[in-house]
């Protein structure tokens, strides 16, 4: 899994690329926890280059949500493919994630909700 960070003022956009499966979930969890522990509380996770999502990847996202909520922050997602949407629905977690079609939409939302 590859992660590229992009900053829009205080908002961090993470561009995630590759497979989110059991092979990388520990590493990704560690990385995300590290970012949050540094005080980052407004985040966009951009997933248009994520080509596989398993239960391990979903748990990583759920963990991120939990940590950010505990820190009174916001995290939104964008760029889910049709396949990823279906996996989240099958898992029963589709409604847990605030999702936008584009990074621009996600950014606009989070700017309005996280000043």
């Amino acid at each position: 899994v590859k992660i590229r960070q992009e900053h829009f003022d205080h908002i961090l956009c993470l561009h995630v690329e590759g497979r989110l499966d059991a092979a990388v979930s520990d590493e990704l969890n560690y990385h995300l926890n590290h970012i949050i522990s540094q005080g980052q509380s407004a985040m966009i996770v951009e997933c248009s280059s994520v080509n596989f999502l398993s239960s391990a990847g979903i748990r990583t996202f759920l963990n991120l949500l939990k940590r950010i909520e505990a820190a009174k922050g916001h995290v939104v997602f964008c760029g889910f493919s049709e396949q990823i949407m279906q996996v989240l629905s099958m898992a029963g977690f589709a409604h847990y994630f605030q999702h936008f079609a584009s990074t621009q939409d996600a950014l606009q939302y989070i700017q309005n909700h996280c000043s």
Partner: protein
Amino acid sequence: MQRTIPAKLELIRPVLATIVKEAKERVAPTSLWKLELALEEALVNIVKHAYKDPEGAIDITSFSDKNFFMVILCDKGVAFDPTQELSTQLFDASFDKLGLRLMRESSELAYERKSEYNFLTLKVPLQSAVTV
């Protein structure tokens, strides 16, 4: 195709890649990613829960008949039937319910315990069979 791998997390990706390549010509794209997902969850489940002995192995056999592409996973670990509700099984709390849900939703499963072995069959329809 038949292969045997040690039950190790890092070996799941290469095996999935081989099976996906094998199934690609025969299975519709929507069934292909569902098969891949079900296999990932099933293999992770075996790697994490089947063996106390770190040397445990998984036999993986893939083939197709007239209507389905199938993969049979065989291990000699603790008896575990992923087609059953978790509450009826041993070690309930440690098993991964989310993974099991995805496995069941994304492919057709059949389970058998024969002597000391678990046999789990995952199957998805062949491309030609989808429209029949």
